[in-house]
């Protein structure tokens, strides 16, 4: 059986700098994998290449979702096939209320999939429920998306969008950074609630504490633009104790 | 129309008037009825440069427009130069032009002083500055004109690829004074910082006009001008940033901030952006205001006289501009100049 996400020998560069080289990764349906690695290793780059951010040039290898070529698709086509990225640095969009944004996104995805759009009342009901689950003040959703939000609020907003859009593959890029202790727990609970047999997650993080809440099935170490080691949850604990030194040597 | 043309021909018809958009706030036609006679050749002793002390350099002196015509700095060399533009003849007219050129990779620090030995002069000086590939020039201009003088100074600056120009112009104005900078990013990836500071009082007038042209991709311009007007003085700021088609990745910023300290003083500003390329980030800001009453009270409550408190706050307001000067000696000279001007 092929995995939900299959990345083989992926190489990519940005502005003439090779960042990813021969990166391979297999993420079966229903599993949660963590990616850890030193600053600048290429973790965010991987998330951008998988979601099709302009400016990244794939120089080799492939990435397949449900055994279909992902890299040939436009970013929005990947999104409506269920690829969701929780950005490390969520973007501010002045003048567009978060609610308007989210509803436009949801309906765009539904339309692309040939599904019926959600009505305004159904949408509000859905968002209210999800926001309550994440202990978010509903009034915040009336403000322009992310404008003036604190770091933690932005991250919560990302998870709310994930909950509403219900993706098949969620990539969380350092969603834990900037969260206070309570928020970390709430966000982790939100993530856990989304665990499902047909949904997979790639959790990029620097810290064990997130993994205490979200128990990953596997942990990968990304260094020097490729996966240099993989193991069970215990690998994260090793890293926390020993740092990345031995992996950085491996990557060289 | 230019002052130089009028001086050379003796015909006031060539004087720029307020009917011309570029001179709308600096009217020379209405001011000068008869052009003064040309300055006689200078004979006599020149005073020592007042700012020589912290600035060990070679000296280039131009008196009433007469003197060396150019200054060339060969590739790779580093120089420190003092350029003195001296107005010596009372009530006379003069036109001058001097070239400063830096070849590829050359570096220079230039202290340009406008000095006056007598009053009533009418002069125009053009300085053609060119920077070769990767050349760097830092210039400080101290424009100390007499209150009854009319003076126009035009700096025409061309930057080759990767050149860096850091400029600061400090002035107290004149009867009419225009300090104009035309700068072109000709070949890309060059940087310019244009700083300006004016302190005007009495019936003085100063006009800081600039045109910054981005002709090629990847260049940056950063302009900051601050000043104060008191008495019946008038400050003019006309800044224009022009980004030509194809000058992508241009980053241009312009700020002009003025304090009006008296009800009979005036500030006129026109910060313009003219943009023909889409991959750009340009911004300008312009503020005109007055001293903050709260701050004034705070200082007085701590024991300063009102005059002292005002001087203190205005100096603090304008001095931020000087932080942008990177050469330590120029920085010292500039601060000394400001301290002299700020002494109540």
């Amino acid at each position: 059986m092929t995995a939900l996400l299959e990345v083989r020998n992926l190489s990519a560069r940005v502005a003439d700098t090779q960042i990813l080289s021969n990166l391979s990764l297999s993420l079966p349906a229903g599993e949660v994998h963590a990616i850890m690695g030193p600053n600048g290793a290429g973790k965010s780059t991987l998330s951008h290449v998988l979601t099709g951010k302009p400016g990244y040039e794939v120089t080799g290898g492939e990435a397949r979702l449900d055994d279909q070529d992902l890299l040939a698709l436009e970013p929005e086509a990947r999104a409506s096939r269920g690829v969701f990225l929780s950005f490390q640095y969520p973007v501010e969009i002045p003048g567009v209320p978060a609610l308007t944004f989210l509803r436009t996104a949801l309906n765009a995805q539904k339309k692309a999939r040939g599904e019926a759009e959600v009505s305004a009342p159904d949408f509000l009901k859905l968002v209210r429920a999800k926001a309550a689950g994440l202990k978010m003040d509903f009034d915040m959703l009336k403000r322009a998306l992310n404008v003036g939000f604190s770091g933690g609020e932005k991250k919560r907003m990302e998870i709310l969008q994930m909950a509403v859009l219900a993706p098949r593959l969620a990539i969380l890029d350092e969603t834990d950074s900037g969260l206070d202790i309570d928020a970390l727990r709430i966000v982790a609970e939100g993530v856990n609630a989304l665990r499902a047999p047909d949904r997979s997650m790639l959790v990029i993080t620097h810290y064990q504490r997130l993994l205490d809440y979200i128990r990953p099935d596997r942990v990968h170490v990304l260094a020097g633009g490729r996966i240099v080691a993989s193991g069970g949850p215990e690998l994260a604990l090793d890293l926390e104790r020993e740092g990345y030194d031995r992996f950085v040597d491996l990557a060289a | 129309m230019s002052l130089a043309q009028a001086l050379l021909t003796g015909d006031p018809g060539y004087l720029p008037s307020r009917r011309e958009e570029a001179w709308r706030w600096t009217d020379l036609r209405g001011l000068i009825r008869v052009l003064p006679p040309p300055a006689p050749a200078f004979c006599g002793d020149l005073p020592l440069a007042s700012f020589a002390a912290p600035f060990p350099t070679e000296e280039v002196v131009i008196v009433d427009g007469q003197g060396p015509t150019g200054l060339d700095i060969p590739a790779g060399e580093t120089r420190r130069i003092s350029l003195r533009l001296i107005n010596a003849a009372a009530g006379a007219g003069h036109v001058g032009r001097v070239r400063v050129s830096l070849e590829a990779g050359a570096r220079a620090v230039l202290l340009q002083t406008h000095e006056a030995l007598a009053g009533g002069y009418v002069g125009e000086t053009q300085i053609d500055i060119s920077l070769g590939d990767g050349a760097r020039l830092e210039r400080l201009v101290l424009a100390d004109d007499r209150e009854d003088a009319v003076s126009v100074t035009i700096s025409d600056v061309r930057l080759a690829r990767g050149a860096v120009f850091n400029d600061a112009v400090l002035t107290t104005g004149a009867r009419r004074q225009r300090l104009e900078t035309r700068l072109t990013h000709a070949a890309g990836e060059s940087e310019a910082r244009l700083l300006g500071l004016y302190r005007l009082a009495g019936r003085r007038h100063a006009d800081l006009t600039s045109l910054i042209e981005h002709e090629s991709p990847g260049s940056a311009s950063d302009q900051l001008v601050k000043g104060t007007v008191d008495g019946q003085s008038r400050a003019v700021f006309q800044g224009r940033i022009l980004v030509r088609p194809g000058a992508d990745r241009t980053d241009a910023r312009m700020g002009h901030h003025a304090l009006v300290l008296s009800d009979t003083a005036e500030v006129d500003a026109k910060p313009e952006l003219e943009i023909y390329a889409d991959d750009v980030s340009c911004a300008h800001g312009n503020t005109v205001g007055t001293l903050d009453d709260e701050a004034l009270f705070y200082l007085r409550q701590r024991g300063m006289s009102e005059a002292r408190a005002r001087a203190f706050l205005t100096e603090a307001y304008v001095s931020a501009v000087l932080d942008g000067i990177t050469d330590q000696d120029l920085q010292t000279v500039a601060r000394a100049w400001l301290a002299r001007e700020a002494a109540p």
Partner: protein
Amino acid sequence: MPATSKTAAQVLELERYKHGFITDIDQDVAPRGLTEETVRFISAKKDEPDWMLAWRLEAFARWRALEEPNWARVDYPPIDYQDIHYYAAPRAGEGPKSLDEVDPELLATYAKLGIPLSEQAVLAGVEGAPRYAVDAVFDSVSVVTTFKAELAAVGVIFCPMSEAIREHGDLVRQYLGSVVPVSDNYFACLNSAVFSDGSFVYVPPGVRCPMELSTYFRINAEKSGQFERTLIIADRGSYVSYLEGCTAPMRDENQLHAAVVELVALDDAEIKYSTVQNWYPGDAEGRGGIYNFVTKRADCRGARSKVSWTQVETGSAVTWKYPSCVLRGDHSTGEFYSIAITNNRQQADTGTKMIHLGAHTRSRIISKGISAGRSSSTYRGLVSAHPKAKGARNFTQCDSLLIGPHAAAHTTPYVEARNSGAQFEHEATTTRLSEEQLFYARQRGLTQEEAVQLLVNGFVKDVLQELPMEFAVEAQKLVAISLEGSVG
């Protein structure tokens, strides 16, 4: 292809102008050309008193001595002022009348444009929906004005200018030309000589006008110009909100629209003036389209008076327009909110003047310019404080958005401060659509076109929310349509 250049290519593709149809109606037109005779002809057609004719003739004499201005950043071939019809009217369409007398062809035209001319239709609308009184101007004449009786009951006069000249001569004589003097500028002077119709509004002291007033302008006739004249007087302590909309058929020729709008606000009065300008912009190659050369000025004559201008400018081939406020009364306030969108070969040079004469006067300017295709958009503004304007305050925010490599955006603000109490603050930015924001929206599933539209709506939101509700919805649609080439 990077997102924005793709967008630009689409912008060039097509511009869907939905109001481009021509109404086939019997016309009454003045012969082409402009002489004293033309002026007399128009005045006679309108059955005007002598003083009005004398006023027009003086304007005409002065106009002949003036020169067309050339300082704006717009470029168009010389206009042949002798090749224009200065008067065109639906036959037997002289003067407003009751609805059942109006040519059904005309009613159909307005229905097609979405303008409710039938009072019953408006009344039969959704309960609680805002009501609009409409003055419909078709070429040179007003064809109908609705809700006149209901307005008259509270003393509000709302009628065509031609009728006001005949029936409220004293008011017109007192105020006409008092804000925009006859020879203020070339186009205003031309208008003073040949203006045909327009709206007149007078709101008596203390009255809050019970409904939105609106005028809907339509140029239909070929080779004709439109020269309407609007005068609004808000007497002490009154309030009125006025809306203006305009469209024209698609024609290969350029048509001239030179209007004058004068607003007078007395003590404690407030006028809100909103415009959705959607004159035909010409085709993608720049053929045809309206030359929109308009003079709009408000005199905040009374203490604590207030005028806000809100404009959404999406149409016209060339726009030259600076709705301004003369802040004469102490503590008076002027506001200017503007969205200007240019696409294809359109050119717009627009902005405002805030002239602070009185003490503690305030003004606020928010301008959003969007240029796409090969168009050019200029913000031109003046903020000045005179020696007596102690404590004057201005805030200006002026943002430009560029879509595609061939569009141009300019900002030319003038600031003149002549006293120590004034505080002026001006900020301006020019950027292109952010690739980061576009990608973020696309990552969430929006198409390129939807993402562009969403970001543009966000960009103009500060101004849209200044419009009356009903208009805001229409304007938002218009913004989308204007950039439709760029959004598929």
